[in-house]
């Protein structure tokens, strides 16, 4: 059993252990979970180190010829007759996502320290979900990938339905059904790839060496793009996201907005673009328009929101638009930026939802107009909120800047297939959203935290407790690390984006020669 299997199944094991803890000793559960996630964080660090030891030299070799190298692989035959393998492995992109997930779940456990209602079931489901998320990031077999993908989506129904707030049953059902329709499209896409390849294997690397007919790519690529796009909050299929995130409990919002939505972008890159580059070339310009709408619509949507969670959720829609926008540029800068944005937005939005949970736990309201002057009573939380807000509007020095500047540069460079004028115009429009972001972030935060205390009941509120400080502090350190020394991540991501790019370029020459 290799380190990746341990990383994937440690959360599942934790879930089983949690189930065995007697109901009245629920305080123990959170310590078990914290220990497990801390161990997970350590193991992820170890895994990253081992990955880098193996992959490091590739950064220096000729990148133009780089093919996908999968490291730390574990491969066993599973359903032999159908060519299904248990195939785990990592490349740069998956390592980055693993680090993100480990951080988010660690801080997520701390942020849900005071869940007292059916604690046992809550943490058990949460950890089942985490198993699915980790599994998706390390699967290089499409069957296994899909299994983990569904495991990551379904527990959400109960997590929101039981522990949520507001119209939780409606939100939970909407979220589950929309994501499941998305995965129905993905399933059809996977089967199409499997049968057109005709080599009886679900191995992603082997499938990527097949030349698929262009007309098949033309209709299968949108299956993947829209299927994964639902989870990546692609306009107009994003409507589950504000409702879902607003109703979900804190840790679930963090995990869902922080990590799960990234599965969408990750899937489009890893499966859609990588396997069907010609389909991507044909569709990307049209989709770029759609993702520009995504970015602008999300930003303007956020301006109108009064509820902090809806506010953050719409902002997430806008930021996830950058991920999809970056992918649609089909060049190195853009795709690298997309992966960076996944990481950066994951940390950022995790921080936001954690903070909202903490503030709500004190004020019992999430409506911005009802707050005001909270910085006086809870300076720590206010400062954290500001740092997160600055990151989300792309202030240099924080992670958002690094990611968004990559995406914009990528959009501006364009590629040889698209009209440069169009991509540049779209990039300019998308860049405008940063201004809108500044408006809503600064205005919203000023209203909530600055000025005199509006409600006198708020005067006796306390600032963050130790576990809250620990949780938010970790996330803020991550924001700064990515913002100030991004090379560690960008080098890693580059090694995995190059193979995808090379496949696109190869396909592009074929398209050109037609």
């Amino acid at each position, binding site marked *: 059993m290799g380190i990746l299997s341990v990383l994937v199944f440690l959360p599942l094991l934790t879930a089983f252990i949690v189930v065995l803890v007697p109901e009245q000793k629920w305080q123990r559960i959170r310590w078990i979970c914290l220990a497990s996630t801390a161990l997970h964080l350590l193991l992820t660090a170890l895994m990253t180190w081992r990955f880098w030891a193996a992959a490091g030299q590739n950064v220096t070799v000729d990148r133009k010829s780089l093919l996908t190298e999968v490291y730390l692989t574990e491969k066993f035959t*599973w*359903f*032999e*007759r*159908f060519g299904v393998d248990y195939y785990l492995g990592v490349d740069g992109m998956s390592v980055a996502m693993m680090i993100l997930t480990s951080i988010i779940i660690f801080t997520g456990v701390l942020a849900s320290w005071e869940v007292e209602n059916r604690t046992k079931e809550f943490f058990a489901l949460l950890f089942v979900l985490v198993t699915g998320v980790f599994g998706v990031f390390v699967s290089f077999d499409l*069957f296994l990938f*899909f*299994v*983990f993908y*569904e*495991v990551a989506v*379904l527990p959400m*129904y*109960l997590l929101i*339905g*039981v522990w949520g707030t507001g119209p*939780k*049953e409606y939100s939970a*059902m909407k979220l*589950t*059904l929309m994501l*499941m*329709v998305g*995965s*129905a*499209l993905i*399933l*059809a896409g996977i*089967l*199409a790839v*499997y*049968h057109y390849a005709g080599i009886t294997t679900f191995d992603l690397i082997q499938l990527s060496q097949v030349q698929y007919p262009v007309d098949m790519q033309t209709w299968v690529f949108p*299956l993947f793009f829209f299927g994964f796009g639902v989870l990546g909050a692609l306009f107009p299929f994003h409507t589950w996201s504000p409702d879902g995130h607003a109703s979900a409990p804190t840790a679930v919002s963090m995990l869902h907005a922080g990590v799960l939505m990234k599965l969408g972008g990750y899937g489009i890159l890893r499966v859609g673009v990588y396997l069907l580059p010609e389909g991507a070339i044909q569709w990307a310009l049209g989709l770029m328009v759609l993702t520009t709408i995504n970015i602008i619509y999300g930003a303007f949507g956020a301006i109108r929101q009064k509820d902090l969670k809806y506010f953050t959720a719409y902002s997430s829609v806008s930021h996830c638009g950058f991920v999809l926008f970056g992918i649609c540029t089909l060049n190195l800068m853009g795709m690298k930026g997309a992966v960076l944005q996944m990481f950066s937005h994951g940390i950022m939005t995790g921080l936001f939802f954690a903070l909202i949970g903490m503030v709500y736990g004190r004020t019992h309201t999430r409506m911005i107009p009802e707050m005001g002057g909270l910085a006086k009573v809870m300076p720590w939380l206010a400062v954290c909120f500001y740092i997160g807000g600055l990151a989300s509007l792309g202030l240099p020095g924080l992670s958002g800047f690094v990611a968004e500047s990559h995406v914009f540069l990528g959009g501006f460079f364009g590629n040889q297939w698209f009209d440069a004028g169009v991509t540049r115009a779209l990039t300019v429009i998308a860049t405008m959203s940063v201004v809108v972001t500044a408006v809503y972030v600064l205005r919203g935060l000023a209203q909530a935290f600055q000025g005199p205390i509006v409600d006198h009941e708020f005067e006796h509120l306390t600032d963050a407790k130790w576990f809250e400080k620990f949780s938010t502090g970790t996330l803020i350190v991550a924001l700064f690390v990515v913002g100030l020394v991004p090379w560690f991540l960008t080098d890693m991501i580059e090694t995995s984006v190059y193979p995808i790019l090379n496949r696109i370029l190869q396909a592009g020459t074929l398209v050109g020669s037609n």
Partner: protein
Amino acid sequence: MAMLPEFILLSLAFVILLGDLFLPKTTMRQWGALLALLGLVGALGSLLLLPQDATLLGGRFVMDQITWWFKLVFLVAGLLVVGFSADLLSGRIQDQKMVLDSAAEFLAVILFTLSGMLYLVSSRDMVTLYVSLELATIPLFVLTAWSKRDELSEEAGMKYLISGALASCFMIYGLSLIYGVTGVMELTQLDAEYATHPLVWVGLAMVTAGVGFKVTLVPFHMWAADVYQGAPTLVTAFLSVASKTAGVGVLFHLYIRVFIELIPDWSPVLAIAAFVTMTLGNLVAIVQENVKRFMAFSSISQAGYILMGFLGPTQEGVVAILFYLLVYAVSNLTVFGVIILYSSSTRRENISEYRGLSRTHPGLALIMMLGLFSLAGIPPLSGFTGKFFLFSAAAKAGYYWLVVAAAVNSTVSLYYYLRIVRQMYIEAPDGSEVRVQMSWMPRMALGLALIGTILLGVVPVF
């Protein structure tokens, strides 16, 4: 020797009947289920030990790998249902009105119909095929009307009898047409040269219609809802699994074994039938309030998925159908196990009456949820693996529109399965103090069904 499982079942049925005649009634009530269970285990054991290829009676009775698998499904279904029945027969339940009449006859009739099903999948001759189909079906009419004091049950029995008789008419008329053209009774001797004869087409269509009743293909599904709701829950569970599998067995005979050349011609029809069946089943299930009626429509939609495996005569399709039959049997019986046990202690059959089950009976709620998720095709449960390979077979035949439609249909089905999950997990209990009691036999059956539901999804058995 190849007929040993059938012999064990039949002789056991007679032993139980005779025992009922000579022993006190209470003895059979107490020990009948255990005896039947032991017999089924014996039949299953002999099935596992016997060679998987044998030909008897001049080629009219054949045992091969595919037949073997069908028999496995029947015996597993029988085993689980008899396991669930133990408390209902012995009367160790709270509500004495739920206790089934005449325990010994009940078991004997179940064993008769099971043996009919086992013969059915082994027969390679139109006469034995038809006779064994009747042996499997007629006891089911009796079982459906078993609760004599319950009007719904009587009505269901009568409805099932009439529609079943009609189905048999279609079937035998179709068979006689095929025989009229070809002049042979043995399925194995039917030649491909007759396959294009128009009367063979008509015959095949009529047999398909007749079997369509058993498999609950739309538009031959009308009887299912009333019969499933009216029949004693145990019988509903048995009907939904074993009877459907028997129907698929006949379809298998006709399409895969005999007229395999016709499949490309028939595929569009089958694809549309599959689509209509799963969609109608799913849409109607959404509005159901009674859990048995709900499961009826759920099982109609499952028949649509199974039909997908028949598109394109591929090895993958055959494997997918066989695998899914077993998966469906264990998953459906997991759900039905909970329904049976819950309703036999509380007489509750409405979906809204499952509210708060996760608080009052966490174990049962979890088992029910896993069973429902497996039926909805959620990984890593077996229902997902089974559906994935069925969809793959349809994709291989080029029916991508059907794959998308079926996958979207799974989402629709998830919606109504989640309705029950919502009642169990999100709603608060209604405060009534009912405890579900069960002895070791139902407990064990439920455990086995659950283990099957989970393990078949991850352990490669084929």
